[in-house]
């Protein structure tokens, strides 16, 4: 996602008593980024995934404002206001990086050339619908950025999110109540409690965080989960 969503603030607020921390969610997701992947990371927790990709895997980061081969944060000497990421923060370019214009950048996205995109979520439905750009509140200034293009075009969409809202309401639902970012686009969810795959048969729980039980997750999910953890 190209810009800060309210979700990133929610996610940064308070950790659950049990389950994975924000860093651990990013770390768990990073295990699934394969060697040689072209990857676009949304801002907030998804950005942290880059820190945890296992050693020995070469991954190229795409930022939709026109750079393949995004590097780490610049030092004071390296800082150039003309070299920023989609969140408008200064970045660096790795040796072997490439710059291009917005038309080409979104051709990479829409043309299914990017392998993985990791985003935050406000809500995810049983069918993999994603809502992460607007609560639909009438007084809000609507802003979408590149989120709809990313979910429509990137081959695999991973979501990192707290399992429930700050007030404990379920975020994994039969239907999203917020306006959609994309329909049937999510492949996998990494929450603070578990990993869930979106499949044709329904939501398949494939992994639990330490000390978290299937029943604990099910009680915080508004969709009946299929338990694949034996």
């Amino acid at each position, binding site marked *: 996602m190209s810009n800060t969503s309210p979700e990133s603030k929610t996610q940064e607020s308070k950790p659950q008593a049990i389950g994975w921390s924000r860093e651990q969610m990013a770390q768990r997701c990073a295990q699934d980024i394969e060697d040689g992947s072209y990857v676009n990371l949304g801002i907030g927790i998804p950005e942290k995934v880059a820190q945890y990709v296992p050693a020995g895997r070469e991954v190229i980061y795409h930022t939709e404002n026109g750079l393949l081969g995004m590097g780490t944060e610049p030092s004071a000497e390296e800082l150039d*206001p003309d070299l920023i990421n989609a969140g408008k923060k200064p970045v660096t370019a790795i040796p072997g990086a490439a710059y291009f214009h*917005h038309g080409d950048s979104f051709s990479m996205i829409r043309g299914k050339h990017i392998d993985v995109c990791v985003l935050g979520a406000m809500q995810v439905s049983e069918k993999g619908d994603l809502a992460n750009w607007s609560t639909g509140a009438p007084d809000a200034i609507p802003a979408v950025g590149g989120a*709809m293009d990313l979910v429509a075009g990137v081959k695999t969409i991973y979501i990192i999110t707290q399992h429930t809202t700050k007030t404990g309401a379920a975020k994994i639902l039969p239907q999203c109540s917020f306006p959609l970012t994309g329909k049937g686009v999510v492949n996998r969810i990494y929450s603070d409690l578990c990993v869930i795959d979106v499949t044709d048969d329904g939501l398949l729980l494939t992994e639990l965080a330490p000390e978290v039980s299937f029943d604990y997750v099910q009680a915080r999910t508004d969709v009946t989960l299929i338990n694949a953890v034996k």
Partner: protein
Amino acid sequence: MIDKRVTSCAAAVADIKDGDTVMIGGFGEAGSPIELIHALIDHGAKNLTVVNNNTGSGRIGLAALIENGQVAKMICSYPRTANSMVFPELYRSGKIELELVPQGTLAERIRAGGAGVPAFYTPTSVGTPLAEGKESRTFDGEEYVMELAIKADFALIKAKQADRYGNLTFNKTARNFAPIMAMAATNTLVQANEMVELGDIDPENVVTPGIFVNQIIEVANPQQESKLVKEGVVYP
């Protein structure tokens, strides 16, 4: 003889009329042609439709153009940015219109405008509120929504180097929307950090060929938007 150089930013923007559509390059401050925007504020053309990814920040550049009441409508993907207070206030009081477009659809609509393609089908926004009321069609079992090209009377963009034919290079991610906006506008006005001689830019490295450029003004030391915002500068 072809020489697209002009002597001032004021001369470059002189022909912009009330009601024109103006594309402005930049993604946040990267690539924002701030001197040309300020010349447009001095020039005073009103009732403009402006195409930019954002709505500017602080009270300089694009935000100042909006604050000055010259913009009737914004076409953009993300009007809500850090330090952007001018647009939200006018939008909430109903004084400015917003056409919200997903960023990639915005880029492709601009590119189509410059490429002579009146409309295209895209998978972006299918099933969302931004596809409502738009024609859709199924290709190979997938649903796509039809989007219309955007053209402009003027584009204001910032380049790193320019020669008198209008061949351009850009700096890093400041390139963003500039090359496609140059294609989609009838008149493309460029502020370049550096004017160079014909042939100084290797033809292999020309990013925007001069055919898409109409006027160039050299601005050797452009102001930096974030610095002005930090200092609380207000334009004019």
